[in-house]
């Protein structure tokens, strides 16, 4: 286990008084302790930065952010490392500041190779952009530049070009402050300085991709994206990672109908701006040649390609052959909410079978759902985090980073059982029962103040204690406690302890469920013992019978029974699931790949991936998020919900929910956890639905979310407009030449170009600089991203430009089920 050097304890929040200052003649009031650069951002004044990054502690290493502050002994100050003071008068653009900044840029360019033509970053490089905007344009340096071997692979995914590095230390600080593990550092000094891992070792952190993303220049590039594309050729779509249930937000960058890369789309409530490498580089499966492209049907013992009509016919006939209680469905956790909803409808409503479930943990409680669910954000403000019976480092890396953030602030970590965070634990205790007992035995008013500074276990000189009593006392410090556990861990003991502590949202229980949309499927009723929204089956029967015509309200076989060796069923539908010990007589499989199970199936229906459809997922803390369609479905594949819709059609029911948006609206009308949910919600600030109740009681309406900052996709998400980043000068290129055919629901590049060019005259003050980005947003009032988010949403740096409004009404979400061209 690797520990790290002591670092700044982050401020865990708290009320601060306000300070008023003047920047470029405009007054602004901000909280005490705010940095000048952030105060300027509030006014919409751009101060260029390289080393500064809102998620890292300021270092003041590059000096490009210099501003002129009146009445100072040294008037030229780094805006990123200077806190505001009452009455401060700051000039960002006067002669002194401009001259100083020009000087800094000249120095930064001394050793820079300026090999933009072959640099991945060109077009989204802060060095290019700020040189253009703030540079002097001429260099007095005529000596030879330093030279290094051009590209050096320093990790599995990361390639370093030392000549391009401007020594901003963002990557170093990321490893040190955020990932808190072995990583990159500066080796040598002065002009010889270079970035690298410990000599002879490889930089193989599972978070390494983040360093590539935040590198402000092209010094760090990733193997997967290297030389693949120019940023202005990419169309960007807001989406959500489906690598695990954390639900980190990402941007899918598509180049000519292929995913070129995934980038973080900072959501402070969930991912804090980071992705793990599994999520970031996990897109290669989308274009894998192994993907299923055509329906397959078993004929004479062989799976052979068939038309959709034929395959659906066989599937429907097969399912109809058996009595309802001998038919069942099992879903894997990648299935969307929309797909899950239709699966429930297919089973309980149409086929009349209660046998449906999804892959989930062992400790699923039959009686009632989880209470006291925490929000991921709660980890930031917790005073104690208990990790029990799970390994977030391995299963949910995003949560691992968030726990570390809590540790840097004020949380103390108690680990029960071995996991990737054990080395950071302030306390390690044997079992939850022991801890609960010790807690119960503490004298009533025992409270221990936070005793910082003292070395923490992850700092040099700190150590982990096994003192049970002290560990229990940590839980007494406040009720801001978060328990992190896997869904295989029994929840009763945890709930009891959390109740004694009196936890309140956003703290409480954070269950690391197994798959991306495991929580969503539970809430869509893909369970043998609950109706959607954790309703009791009998109670829900009436409403669903009315809406769906029928509703089988019995309790059915569960996951273990259906996938086990004594599977009682005769016909099954398997969606995205590859465990099945005993094949029933008739098996229909919906999947992306031909798994071992699919090879035994009677009908195999090719499903589309999460970037090829509009869909929602619900993450482990109950946040419902929307993935936009970035690509047309591969081959003849279809979104799962469309397949289920057609299957129902062949079974004799024509459902009215023939678009993803309509399905979601129906969820909103029937599912008590998603009251009045609609795709339109994703446009507004309070859009995200919390499916778990905030206060521990099921069935209460969701808490009032006003005031909880929630990140949305930059533009109205499912609409045709790209959410960020269309290059101004690219418009003419887009208009010229042949383009691939338009995708249903996706804005044709030509169309986009026309629209964008129409918009350009609207942009004023300052006019767009060549090379700058504009954001097209949909709808007259569609809110743009908040400055803090836009900051991160576009590359590593801070680019602030006005957002022109452009109305594009095309919505892929409203595309009805398409007629498939039959071969």
């Amino acid at each position, binding site marked *: 286990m690797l520990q790290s050097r002591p670092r700044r304890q982050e401020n865990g929040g708290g009320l601060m008084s306000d300070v008023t200052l003047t920047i470029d003649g405009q007054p602004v009031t901000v909280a005490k302790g705010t940095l000048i650069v952030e105060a300027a951002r509030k006014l919409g004044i751009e101060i260029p930065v390289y080393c500064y990054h809102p998620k890292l502690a300021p270092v003041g290493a590059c000096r490009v952010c210099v501003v002129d502050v009146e009445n100072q002994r040294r008037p030229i100050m780094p805006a990123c490392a200077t806190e505001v003071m009452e009455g401060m008068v700051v000039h960002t653009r006067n002669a002194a500041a401009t001259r100083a900044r020009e000087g800094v840029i000249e120095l930064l360019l001394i050793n820079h190779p300026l090999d933009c033509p072959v640099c991945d970053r060109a077009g989204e490089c802060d060095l290019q952009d700020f040189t253009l905007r703030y540079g002097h344009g001429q260099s007095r340096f005529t000596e030879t530049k330093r030279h290094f071997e051009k590209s050096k692979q320093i990790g599995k995914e990361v390639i370093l070009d030392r000549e391009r590095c401007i020594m901003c230390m963002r990557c170093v600080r990321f490893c040190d402050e955020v990932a808190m593990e*072995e990583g990159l550092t500066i080796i040598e000094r002065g002009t010889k300085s270079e970035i690298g891992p410990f000599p002879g070792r490889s930089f193989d952190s599972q978070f390494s991709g983040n360093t590539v993303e935040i590198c402000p220049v092209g010094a760090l590039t990733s193997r997967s994206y290297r030389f693949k594309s120019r940023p202005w050729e990419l169309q960007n779509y807001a989406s959500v990672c489906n690598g695990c249930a954390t639900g980190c937000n990402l941007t899918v960058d598509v180049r000519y109908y292929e995913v070129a890369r995934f980038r973080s789309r900072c959501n402070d409530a969930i991912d804090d701006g980071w992705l793990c490498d599994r999520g970031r580089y996990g897109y290669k499966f989308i274009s894998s040649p192994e993907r299923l492209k055509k329906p397959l049907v078993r004929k004479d013992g062989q799976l052979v390609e068939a038309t959709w009509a034929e395959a659906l016919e066989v599937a429907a006939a097969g399912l109809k052959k058996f009595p309802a209680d001998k038919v069942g469905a099992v879903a894997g956790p990648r299935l969307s909410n929309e797909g899950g909803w239709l699966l429930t409808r297919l089973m309980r409503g149409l086929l009349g079978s209660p046998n449906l479930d999804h892959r989930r943990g062992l400790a699923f409680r039959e009686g009632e759902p989880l209470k006291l669910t925490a929000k991921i954000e709660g980890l930031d403000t917790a005073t104690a985090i208990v990790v029990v019976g799970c390994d977030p480092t391995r299963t949910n890396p995003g949560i691992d980073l968030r726990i570390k953030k809590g540790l840097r602030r004020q949380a103390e970590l108690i680990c029960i059982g071995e996991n990737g965070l054990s080395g950071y634990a302030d306390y390690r205790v044997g079992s939850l029962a022991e801890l609960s007992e010790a807690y119960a035995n503490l004298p009533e008013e025992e409270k221990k103040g936070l005793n910082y500074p003292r*070395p923490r276990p992850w*700092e040099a000189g700190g150590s982990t204690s096994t003192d049970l009593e002290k560990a229990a006392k940590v839980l007494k410090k406040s009720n801001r406690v978060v328990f992190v556990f896997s869904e295989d861990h029994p929840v009763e003991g945890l709930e009891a302890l959390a109740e004694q502590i009196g936890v309140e949202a956003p703290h409480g229980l954070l269950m690391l469920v197994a798959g991306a949309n495991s929580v969503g499927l539970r809430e869509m009723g893909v369970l043998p013992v609950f109706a959607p929204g954790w309703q009791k089956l009998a109670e829900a029967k009436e409403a669903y019978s009315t809406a769906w015509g029928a509703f089988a309200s019995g309790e059915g076989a569960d996951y273990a029974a259906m996938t086990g060796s004594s599977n009682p069923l005769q016909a099954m539908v398997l969606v995205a699931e590859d465990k099945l010990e005993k094949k029933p007589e008739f098996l229909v499989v919906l999947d992306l790949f031909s798994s071992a199970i699919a090879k035994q199936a009677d009908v195999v229906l090719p499903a589309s991936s999460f970037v090829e459809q509009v869909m929602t997922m619900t993450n482990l803390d109950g946040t419902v998020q929307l993935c936009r369609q970035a690509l047309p479905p591969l081959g003849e594949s279809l979104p799962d919900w469309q397949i289920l819709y057609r299957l129902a059609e062949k079974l004799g029911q024509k459902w009215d929910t023939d678009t993803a948006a309509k399905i979601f609206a129906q969820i909103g009308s029937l599912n008590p956890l998603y009251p009045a949910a609609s795709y339109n919600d994703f446009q507004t600030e309070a859009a995200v639905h919390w499916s778990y109740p905030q206060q521990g009681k099921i069935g209460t309406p969701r808490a009032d979310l006003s005031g909880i900052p929630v990140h949305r996709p930059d533009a109205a998400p499912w609409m045709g407009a790209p959410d960020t980043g269309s290059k101004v000068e690219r418009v003419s290129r887009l208009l010229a030449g042949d383009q691939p055919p338009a995708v249903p629901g996706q804005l044709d590049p030509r169309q986009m170009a026309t629209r964008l060019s129409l918009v350009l005259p609207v942009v004023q003050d300052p006019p767009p600089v060549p090379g700058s980005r504009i954001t097209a947003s949909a709808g007259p009032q569609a809110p743009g991203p908040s400055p803090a988010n836009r900051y991160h949403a576009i590359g590593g740096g801070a680019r602030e430009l006005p957002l022109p409004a452009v109305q594009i009404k095309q919505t892929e979400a409203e595309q009805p089920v398409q007629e498939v061209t039959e071969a």
Partner: protein
Amino acid sequence: MPTQELLSPKLQERIKELMASYPKPQSAILMALHLIQEELGWVPEPAQAQVAELFGMPPQDVTTLVSFYYMYHRKPVGRYVLKVCKSISCYLCGSQNVIDHLEKKLDIKMGETTADGQFSLVGSECLAACTGAPCLQVNDRFYENCSQERLDELLSRLRGGDSHFPPANVSWQPPKES
């Protein structure tokens, strides 16, 4: 990667004592690296990793120190390490001539060691002996006003086996004008 046990138990003991004598144990890291260099003659990478473990630091944090300070050797060095000051006073007084002369006489480049293992030539930041610029250090003994003649004298006395030359901690004074 298992760290090769390079630090003797006795050395590890001394390092732990050092750590205990500072309010923040990691403050002892530079001293610990000096101890290692004293014992091994240089600070090899496995030793860096091992001392990082002792201090509970990620290994790259030790590398960054060892490579930042010229006093630590990241390669094996000769019996006499000539550390030529390259900072401003010495530079103005001709440190480049010193380097050129030594490179020629020893037939090595800066950063290298002679084949017989006697001399290593390295650069250094200001040695705080600017009054005697250009100056150098022979291991940790000062040698100032390095004209070509004085450099030749230095080399010949060291080659001749006078391992106490220049005398420790005595700043050399030019002969008084008569």
